[in-house]
């Protein structure tokens, strides 16, 4: 029964995401086609029209990851609602959605790479992997933010939606000025002392990977943390 519920969540998410992706793709490609056709009618330049058509795969390749990220940003609460109506626990909901997220990210990354083949050669394996991991991290981040927003009422969403980016920008600016200071001290040599390991770490080539792993763990934890606290709201 438990695995059935999880499958149900995954299938549902994939189904809805599929509809959303197709709708978005149809709109974007449609609008682009209309503009290209209009240009053809006014300029009578068939050559230019054919070139424009070649741009469609690029547009698609750009739009699909956006749809994916936005989907996971806006749907957590509505998924929670139908899931809890059907006796699906938060734990199962989280697993099911995560599974759907992984599957859809891999699928869209694959489609993206295939579409990209129309205008550039296939990248190296490591480039492909980094692209996939990058997309995954982005979508997971949006999922975490979406789950967090799922806890908030409409008013709360507005407040946090405006306030949080401002706080982030301020923090980022403070961090940057702090880093400036650290760099100065680093040249000094004396000051490092016990902090030396940190700078060795920053120098290491494994560092980006370690940072990425830590970031992923934090984001994953946040999706679960927010997910487990979701409740039916009155608005």
């Amino acid at each position, binding site marked *: 029964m438990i695995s059935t519920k999880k499958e149900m969540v995954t299938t549902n998410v994939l189904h809805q995401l599929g509809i959303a992706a197709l709708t978005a793709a149809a709109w974007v490609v449609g609008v682009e086609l209309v503009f290209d056709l209009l240009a053809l009618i006014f300029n009578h330049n068939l050559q230019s029209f054919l070139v424009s058509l070649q741009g469609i795969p690029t547009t698609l390749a750009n739009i699909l990851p956006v749809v994916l990220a936005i989907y996971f940003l806006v749907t957590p609460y509505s998924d929670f609602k139908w899931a809890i109506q059907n006796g699906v626990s*938060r734990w199962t909901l989280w697993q099911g959605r995560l599974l759907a997220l992984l599957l859809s990210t891999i699928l869209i990354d694959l489609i993206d790479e295939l579409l990209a083949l129309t205008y550039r050669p296939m990248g190296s394996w490591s480039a492909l992997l980094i692209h996939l991991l990058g997309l995954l991290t982005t979508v997971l981040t949006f999922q975490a933010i979406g789950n967090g927003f799922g806890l908030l009422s409409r008013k709360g969403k507005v407040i946090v939606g405006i306030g949080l980016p401002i706080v982030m920008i301020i923090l980022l600016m403070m961090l940057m000025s702090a880093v400036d200071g650290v760099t100065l001290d680093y040249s000094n040599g004396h000051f490092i002392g016990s902090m030396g390991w940190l700078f060795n770490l920053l120098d290491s080539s494994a560092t980006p990977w370690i940072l990425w792993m830590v970031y992923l763990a934090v984001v994953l934890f946040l999706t679960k943390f927010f997910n487990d606290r979701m409740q039916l709201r009155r608005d």
Partner: protein
Amino acid sequence: MEQLSIKHVTKRFGRRTVLDDISFTLAPAKIYGLLGSNGAGKSTLLNIITNRIFPTSGTVELGNENINNNDDALGKIFLMSEANLYPKRTSVRRMFDLANGAYGHFNYQTAERQLKLFGLDESAHLNDLSTGEQTIAKVILALNVAVDYVLLDEPVLGLDASHRELFYQELLKSYQAQPRTFVLSTHLIEEVQQLVEHVIIIGQHKVIADSDVQEMLDRAHSVSGPARLVDQYTAGLRVLKVEDIGKLRTAYVYDDLDDDRILPDQVQLGHYDLQHLFIYLTNGGENNHD
């Protein structure tokens, strides 16, 4: 089947207490009435029982297991609520399919018969239906989900008299075909009085009665006659309300009348119904007459 126990559940929204230390137990295969005036916290309580919202303190247990985040337990409880939790373009058929997927063994056959009976189309989208039709769709869903505990929050909201009649009939049919627990949360007490076996009354955010209906009615006595004699007779008994018409006094007692109490000739004993008992219990509070 296991019992569903609500243990010391308290819920506060900010500083406002909605439920204050609520405890009671629901037994398998019984029809319950959950009664309370508007805003008494019935819906909040049902939402807590189904893990839709968290209590401030207390637990809900099915058998010995906490229902919180528990797929097995949640898979045995279904709540039909006023709030519609489905995505916008959800058809009646899709609601059935979701329930079938999550709970298993959805009774499509009966559901289809009932849709015809109430004149509803399974391809209709929930959001396009009127309040009454939405209630019908949700009630049919609830009656055919394979669970041990079916909780119905205002199950006749927006239904006309004939559809209400049909609903009560279908509810009993369903109950007899597959005995399981139903909880009817409603303010239409008169209509469910004969239907429910046991009632739980919530008032002032607490459980003020949790009893077999017949046992409750057996203790509901009206005592009328000359004021002095009525007062004498009801001394020491729990009197919920006193009404005076001219010199005639009627006391509404909620207590057992012991046999050694002498009934004066001019005093008449009678009974009153659940609706009035509910009103007197929730509004009048309690005053011991002496």
